[in-house]
C-alpha cells in the first residue's frame, strides 16, 4: 500500500501530461500555441494572489512569533490526541473551510519551521489537508447567492462534516504513505 501510494505520486503527473498532449494532438488541437495561450493566464492568477497572501502570511506570522500559536496548540492537544490529529495542524483545519488563503498561510508556517519543513510528517499532512478540501463556506455563499437561495437546508452541515472527514482522511493517507499503517 505504501509503495502504491508513492507510485501514484510518481506516475500520475507524467502520465497526465503525456496523455493531455497526445489527446490534444489526435484531436488536431494546435498543442504548442494552445499551451502558450493558456499558460499566459498563470501570471494574472498568481499576481492576483499577492494581496491575499500578504494579508494572511503576515497575520499567521504575528500569531506564531508572539507565542500565541504555541499556547493554542498546547491547549488543544488533549482533545485532539485521541482523534490522532496533531494539534499543530488544528488551526489550519479550523480555517480551511472559511479561508483558503488563511489555511495556506498556516501550511507555509509549518514549512518554514526548521525542524519540520515540507517533507516532514507534519509538512506532508498540512499539504494534503490544504489540497484535499475546498473553501466550503465561500463556495456555499457564491453558489447559493448567485441564484438567490436563502435557506441552505442541510448543505452547510454536509459541507462542514465532510471537511472534518477530509482532515481524518488526510491523517490516514499520510500515515499510509509513511508506513505507519500496514495492510
Amino acid at each position: 500500500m505504501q509503495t502504491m501510494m508513492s507510485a501514484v505520486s510518481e506516475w500520475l503527473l507524467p502520465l497526465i501530461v503525456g496523455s493531455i498532449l497526445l489527446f490534444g494532438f489526435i484531436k488536431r488541437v494546435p498543442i504548442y500555441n494552445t499551451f502558450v495561450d493558456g499558460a499566459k493566464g498563470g501570471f494574472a492568477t498568481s499576481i492576483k494572489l499577492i494581496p491575499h497572501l500578504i494579508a494572511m502570511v503576515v497575520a499567521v506570522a504575528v500569531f506564531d512569533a508572539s507565542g500565541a500559536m504555541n499556547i493554542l496548540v498546547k491547549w488543544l492537544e488533549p482533545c485532539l490526541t485521541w482523534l490522532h490529529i496533531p494539534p499543530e495542524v488544528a488551526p489550519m483545519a479550523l480555517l480551511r473551510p472559511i479561508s483558503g488563503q488563511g489555511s495556506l498561510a498556516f501550511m507555509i508556517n509549518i514549512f518554514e519551521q526548521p525542524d519540520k519543513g515540507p517533507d516532514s510528517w507534519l509538512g506532508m499532512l498540512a499539504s494534503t489537508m490544504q489540497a484535499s478540501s475546498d473553501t466550503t463556506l465561500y463556495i456555499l455563499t457564491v453558489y447559493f447567492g448567485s441564484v438567490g437561495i436563502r435557506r441552505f437546508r442541510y448543505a452547510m452541515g454536509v459541507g462542514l462534516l465532510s471537511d472534518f472527514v477530509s482532515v481524518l482522511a488526510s491523517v490516514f493517507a499520510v500515515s499510509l504513505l509513511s508506513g505507519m499503517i500496514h495492510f
Partner: protein
Amino acid sequence: MIDFIWLVLFLAGIVTAMFTGNMSKVADAIIHGSERGVTLSIGLISVIALWLGLMNIAEKAGAIAWLSRLLRPIARRLFPSVPIEHPAMGAILANMSANLLGIGNAATPLGLKAMHELQTLNEDKETASDAMCTLLAINTASITLIPTTVIAIRMQYHSHEPTAVVGTTLLASAIGTAFAIVLDRVFRKLSRRRRAA
C-alpha cells in the same frame, strides 16, 4: 467572518507578545511576512502557468465533453430529481468534469450555470432543492487530481519530492467526496422524514 478572523490573529498575537516579551519577533514577523507573501505568489507562476497551459489543451480537445459522457451514469444516480435530457444535467456534468480535471477557473462558471438551471426546476425559489445540496456537497469536497498550488509552494521550500502529495491528496479527497455524497443522502432522508412528520 474573515474580518473577524484576521483581526483575532493579529490581536491575539500582539496581546500575547506583551506578556511573553516577543514583541521584537512580532515586529520582525510583520515585515518579513509581507515580503514572503510577495515572493511566494510570484513563485507560483511556474506551476500554475504550466498547468493552465496543459488544461487549455485538454479543454480545446474536448476533455470536458468526453469526461461528461463517462460520468453520465453516475450523475443520473446522484441527481435522481433532474431529468437526464434537461440542460441542468449537462451543466452538472460539465462542472463535475472540470472539477475532476482540476480546471478550477472553468469549474466555477459551469457550477453557477448548473445552479441557474437547477433553479428553473426548483419549486421554492428561496430554499435549496435536493439536487442543489448534492451539487454543493460534491463541489465543496472536490476530488483533486493534481494539487498545483500546494506543489508550487512545496517547491519553494526546497522539498525533495514536491509531488509526493499527489497520492495522499487523491486518496484523502476521494474519501472526503464519498463521505460528502453519503452524508448528503442521509441528511436528505432525515429532512424528508421531518417534513412528513
